């Protein structure tokens, strides 16, 4: 594992978590997309088998978002852990076609968003308006393509050096 694979997952998730609470000037109807961005990073790095991403970092990223947004403690931590579990299960599915990958990604985002909506509804003991969640999921899916491209570009040099490293075993 290179330093990129070791540091990039944590840095990107923490960075996107901070970005989620900055005042971007987005309408409250569209703000739900921001906490979904760390989920995209969690999903990406969970699929990357070389990336170092223990579950406790995911937990602390969610907890940090809960603290900074002054929302119920544990909510985003739980949602991010669910995203991690979804990513782990998806990593076992072999999909090579680009369309298939996007379909799996969309399904994963939908699963996590539905869970986020259910958890929030359970917290308030009533069914919340699902439209901001749906809107956030759609925008998150679009932004995912950009984020994955950025991660891919940041990750590429690490892959080459890792492949050339010689290791003695036994």
């Amino acid at each position, binding site marked *: 594992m290179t330093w990129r694979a070791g540091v990039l997952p944590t840095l990107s998730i923490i960075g996107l978590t901070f970005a989620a609470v*900055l005042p971007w000037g987005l309408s409250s109807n569209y703000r739900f997309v921001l906490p979904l961005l760390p989920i995209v990073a969690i999903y990406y790095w969970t699929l990357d088998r070389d990336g170092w991403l223990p579950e406790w970092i995911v937990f602390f990223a969610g907890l940090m978002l809960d603290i900074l947004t002054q929302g119920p403690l544990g909510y985003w931590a739980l949602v991010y852990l669910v995203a991690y579990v979804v990513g782990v299960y998806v990593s076992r599915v072999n999909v090579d076609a680009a369309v298939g990958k996007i379909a799996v990604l969309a399904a994963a985002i939908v699963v996590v968003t539905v869970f986020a909506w259910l958890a929030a509804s359970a*917290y308030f003991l009533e069914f919340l308006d699902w439209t901001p969640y749906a809107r956030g999921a759609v925008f998150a899916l679009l932004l995912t393509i950009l984020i994955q491209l950025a991660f891919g570009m940041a990750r590429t040099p690490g892959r080459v050096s890792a492949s050339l490293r010689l290791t003695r075993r036994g």
Partner: protein
Amino acid sequence: MTRLNDDHRIFMRGDQRARGRRLRPLILLLMFVSAALMLLSKLDHSMLGDLRWQVASWMTPVFQTAMVPLTPIREAGRTIGTQVGVQDELAHLKKENQRLGSWEWRARQLEAKVANLEAIARTIPAQKLDFVTSRVIADSSGAFVHNVIIDAGSENKVKSGYPVVNGDGLVGRIVETGPHSARVLLATDLNSRIPVVVGPNAVRAILAGDNSAEPRLVYVPDGAKIGPGDEVSTSGSGGLFPSGLRLGAVADNARQSRSVKLRANLDRLDYVSVLFYDDLSAGLGDDLVNRKPENGPAAGTGSNTGNDQRSGP
């Protein structure tokens, strides 16, 4: 090279490649802890609230640093947004300017009349409010809360309960303060309750946030006439806010005639001003309680902290 790469991966991580990541029991523990924390939050445990705000206060320098590159990005976005609708906006402003021109003349007349009447009646002048202007450094608006964090705190004399305004009117109030930051509960938050007066009949009501963009009017007296477009401003009841701070107008939507369209765009707050407004009646209750009958009617008049700020003409 590609083949070497693939061979290396197969040799070193071939079993992992087939299996993918594995879930460890730790994740179950973390999920349990998350659910337990949610439950404690639901029960509104005070320790959690204090701890949360402490941590958020420590993050203030990070947010302030992050605002340096963010500000030009926001400005660029705003410029693009303005350019898109600039023609419509210009026409709207011309029309509004024409309308306000006649109102300005009328307002000056009324101002002079009020000043004369106040002088005749020896009215005590209203409390002059000092204020501090601060930048919004974090926005936590979401499904659960609608609040922002500003970079002015107790070291800038900001206290809990102070009203927060911007150029368009009331935005919310301070609910927590740290040395260099404070949390503002926005008027749209589920926990926000603001005593207001509505329309020309000055109907008293409470403006209750519900985490939507348009808070609702509740506790409206039976038979009160409230129509779309009626101005909504603070009533000053309860002493939480000074009276006369404008909030918005009753929404046009007939079905939701009790919702209010706020003048301030709470999604795009840049700078806000914290009014140093102390409830003048706060110390009044203590004075009345401590007043001894044998001291006569003059008892307690010299010890009121709130009324010291008022002076005669």
